[in-house]
């Protein structure tokens, strides 16, 4: 089991005063079978007039708040502690054939069976895409084991697409990413999800953090970490399994899940309606530090 302490600070500086704002943050890690969030504290400055906490439709922690005093700077800091179990190892070759997915769905529980449908359908930011299907086809040959096929898809995206920060923005359509073969982690997650859904397989968008190591021989710098995004695919006999096309690997005990949904729109870390403000400058600082590392047999 790994234990992490994560601090995530988001700071907006506005050119004009903001008279009030209403916001919603999905920044506190969720609890999952393999992940326990021991605590998560959100601190907002200036202090909100009121705030509410709830768990949304997808099980994510939502912290909503509104500020009614004039301000020109908004800071949201979240400090969380999360423990993550080492995943049981899965054999890529022994998983069931991807094209028998529907027949094997009965192995899952009732709730899972129903929710799987949420993640097969197109979603607001991942519309049906013929080019994604074209791209997916070569990984999904008849009878190929599901995990092996998804792993191959992950591998291909990693090799075919260039990681290029600044190329895409939140509003870049998937088609542009496919055409130019570049993007960032959320584009790759969206692409992989579109591919899987085009094959009739359920896939879920995951936002969170990944523990990173400093370059060899160098100390780890403060704030060097960042938010990350990957995807989950549903394996009837096992449950949801994470794949990270950006780093060409399956999610492991270094992946900290914050929120899950159909696509980025469901898990947006921070959204809000702001009155006034003019333009804004945004800085984000994330630190993921390991507090404990236990190994169990």
């Amino acid at each position, binding site marked *: 089991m790994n234990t992490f302490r994560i601090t995530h600070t988001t700071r907006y500086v506005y050119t004009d005063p903001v008279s009030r704002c209403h916001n919603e943050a999905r920044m506190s890690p969720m609890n999952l079978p393999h992940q326990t969030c021991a605590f998560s504290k959100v601190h907002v400055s200036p202090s909100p007039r009121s705030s509410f906490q709830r768990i949304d439709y997808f099980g994510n922690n939502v912290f909503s708040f509104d500020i009614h005093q004039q301000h020109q700077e908004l800071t949201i800091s979240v400090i969380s502690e999360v423990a993550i179990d080492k995943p049981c190892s899965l054999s890529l070759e022994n998983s069931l054939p991807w094209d028998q997915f529907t027949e094997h769905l009965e192995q899952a529980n009732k709730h899972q069976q129903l929710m799987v449908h949420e993640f097969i359908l197109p979603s607001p930011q991942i519309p049906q895409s013929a080019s994604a299907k074209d791209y997916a086809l070569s990984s999904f040959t008849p009878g190929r084991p599901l995990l092996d096929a998804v792993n191959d898809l992950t591998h291909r995206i990693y090799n075919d697409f260039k990681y290029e920060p600044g190329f895409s923005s939140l509003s870049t359509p998937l088609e542009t990413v496919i055409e130019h073969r570049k993007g960032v982690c959320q584009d790759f997650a969206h692409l992989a999800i579109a591919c899987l859904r085009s094959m009739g397989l359920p896939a879920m968008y995951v936002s969170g953090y990944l523990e990173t190591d400093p370059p060899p021989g160098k100390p780890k710098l403060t704030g060097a970490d960042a938010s990350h995004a990957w995807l989950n695919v549903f394996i009837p006999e096992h449950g949801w399994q994470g794949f990270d096309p950006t780093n060409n690997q399956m999610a492991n005990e270094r992946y900290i899940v914050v929120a899950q949904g159909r696509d980025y729109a469901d898990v947006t870390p921070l*959204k809000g309606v702001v009155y006034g403000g003019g333009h804004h400058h945004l800085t984000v600082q994330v630190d993921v530090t390991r507090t404990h590392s236990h190994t169990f047999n």
Partner: protein
Amino acid sequence: MTSTTPPQTSDEWLQQYRQHLKPEFHDEMWSGEQLSIKPAWQPLIQQLNSLSPSAFHKPRLEAKRLLQENGTTYNVHSQANQSLRSWQLDPLPLVLAENEWQNLERGLQQRALLFDCILQDLYGERRLLKQNVIPPELVFAHPGFQRPCDQVRLALSHQLMHFAVDIARGADGQFWVLADRAQNPSGAGYALECRMIMNRIIPEAMRSITVHRLYHFFQSWRNGLQALVSQHSDEARIVVLTPGPDNDTYYEHAYLATYLGYPLVQGDDLTVRDGKVWLKSLAGLQRVDIILRKTDDLSCDPLELQQDSQQGVPGLLQAVRNQTVAINNPLGSSILENPGLLAFLPAIAKNLLGETLQLPAVGTWWCGQKPALEHVLTNFEKLVIKPIFGNGSCYYPALMTAEEQQQLKDKIKQMPYFYVGQQQPQLATTPTLINDELLPRYYQLRTFLVAEGGSYVALPGGLTRIANNNEGWFQWQTNGGISKDTWILSHEVDRPIRLQPMAPGGVAVQSYEGILPSRAAESLFWVGRYIERAEGSSRLLRTIMDHINNQDEFASEADQQCLYVLLTGLTVMTNTLPGFTGEDTKQKCKQPNPELISLVRDSERVGSLAQVLAAFLHASFSVRDLWSSDTWRTIDDIDDILGQLYCPPTDLGDLQSCLDELITTIMAFTGLTAESMPHESGWYLFDLGRRIERSLLQISLTQSCFSQGLDDTVEHLLQEALLVNNESLITHRRRYRSLQQMENTLALLILDETNPRALAYQIYRIQRLIDHLPHRHQQREYSAEQRIILATATRLRLATANMLAQRGEDGQLHVLIELLEACNSNLLELANTLHHTYFSHTEQAQQLTSMSAEIAMPNEVNV
């Protein structure tokens, strides 16, 4: 003359109608093998014993007039030359027998209950999905399934408070459901309006035939709304939320708000603070307990629902979640407007109610299931294709080319779960007046239900709409078109209840008297300013035209100079530079007509009469709920005159009479407002707007006339022109005989507190009005507005006519000019201060999104 002789008697007329009927059709009036008139129609036909085109001629015109005068038009947002899409009312109602209605009513009540259960289930347990009663795609793929609304409930057993069902009768005599309306069904207000108009146009028939009345329904609606407030709360404030005047059915929103007695508000009028909803009113923030919304689901909360909505209230859904406000219908109810559900309703009714579905829907195949998809593709041309979400849009394969059909089929195959195929049943017809002929027409009836005390109450009647053609594939106009009143015969007269009785054990609803949304206050202020600006411009235009008409070859140089000064004054007053100023002033003044006509009719030109009137109409329409019906009629008259101004006669004389009419109508409007609007906050702001504008116009014109030091003769003519322009010449003559001196003129036009056209009159009035406004800080000192107007009034009070008429060595009226300038800048400052203190100045809202997720370069990760 037509070739056939028009029928003279009702009998002939009915016989002629009969001949139009096709044998296999079901008609509402004629029935049976032998074709006889149904008993339900007998009383009406007896009443209208001369049921003939001529007998209906008058009622039809009257209906048209009333609809127009009441502004009952869809999409009124009156843009300059755009003609309004008006709504026609056929004076011949649809008549249903009581027993027939009772069957239908039971079916409708069951349906409302069923849809309430579906709504509760889909945002609650989702048993329907878990037990495979409906396929998950039908819900998950429907954009109306708003996940943020999951598990959100009103503190009440019923969630669906208001429901509408479109039905039609099949050729077999059976009623069929065509569609369900659940998020903010429109039409109940139109149905009420139809009935009101019927009472006006065929009063005898309405008196002697016992038809179920409509008001019980609206009473139930009120009771149901009141019950939404928890029993412990001792005050309940209800508002009607509208997307605003640009919305197609805005008229109805205003009509319902007025009829139910709730303030009409827009998203900007509301704000969420401390998890509660507040109305920004003239007197500060006021709690809102219940929102009756006419805004779509997605537009209601830009934070949690559709992010780019400009009509919503950020944080609203959280307030609903906290149960500090009840919204009706609940957010997310558009999931029920899903034609795909129709295919599963019998099973749903069994599952949720344990009952058989009473009212069948037209045959519907949801393409998400293979056999249904096959059926739809095979019977393509016999069906109507509808997306499960799409605001009533539909496709008619029968009317498509083979290529178009193929495209549609491909679209369906790509996302089969997003489409249904629907049967187009053979429908019954009802007699309808079309161009003086009685013809059978297809109809559909929108019926309405509201929840009250654990059950659903149906409106005994509804809005009947006529299909726009009579052949094969008919399309229903969603807006406009011909409507009918719907009569449900009753064996006894409904007991009238006019005043709102207290529901037993219910909660007293605190009235909103005196609570005016800030936005409405601002609109009223601008209505006042625009109407005064229109009047001021019209008066000056008229005065100038008089002068032009009186200029002949004998006109003196002084006459001409006077005209030039007035023309320049017009340009300055209306702020339409260059106009009659600048280098070629002389030339333009010699040929003033083109510029004058442009100032009257050019609606694109800011400051022209047409533009000012259009702005007036727009502002008045945005507070449609605050005008009495008589007042609205004068607003409508002003709209008519605006229409005439767009094509003004080239003859100035005709234009003058047009202006005369406009001025009289404007006076009627302001007079009616003073007599029919309660003299409270709203009226104070309206009057403030008028008084401030009138002062500013007068100052501007007086400055133009007397700041140039012209020779005595010209000045003399100008004094006279000003007196005429201000309707003060007669007073002047009576008071001062014919002794026309600057001193007397200024006494009457500037300082006279008793002359409603004098500057002093306006200023003192403004002073009183400002004292009446709610002052937010109850301190023992004057507010900023009070201080400004006090300074202005004092300055005027200290002035004398003699002082004002004094000239400097250069012959200029320095004291006067200085006084006018001081008044002018004070008034502008006052308007500005009022704006900041009282009006809702919502800043531009923008969306805040966090940076896209990024991680350090992948190769830095040690895998």
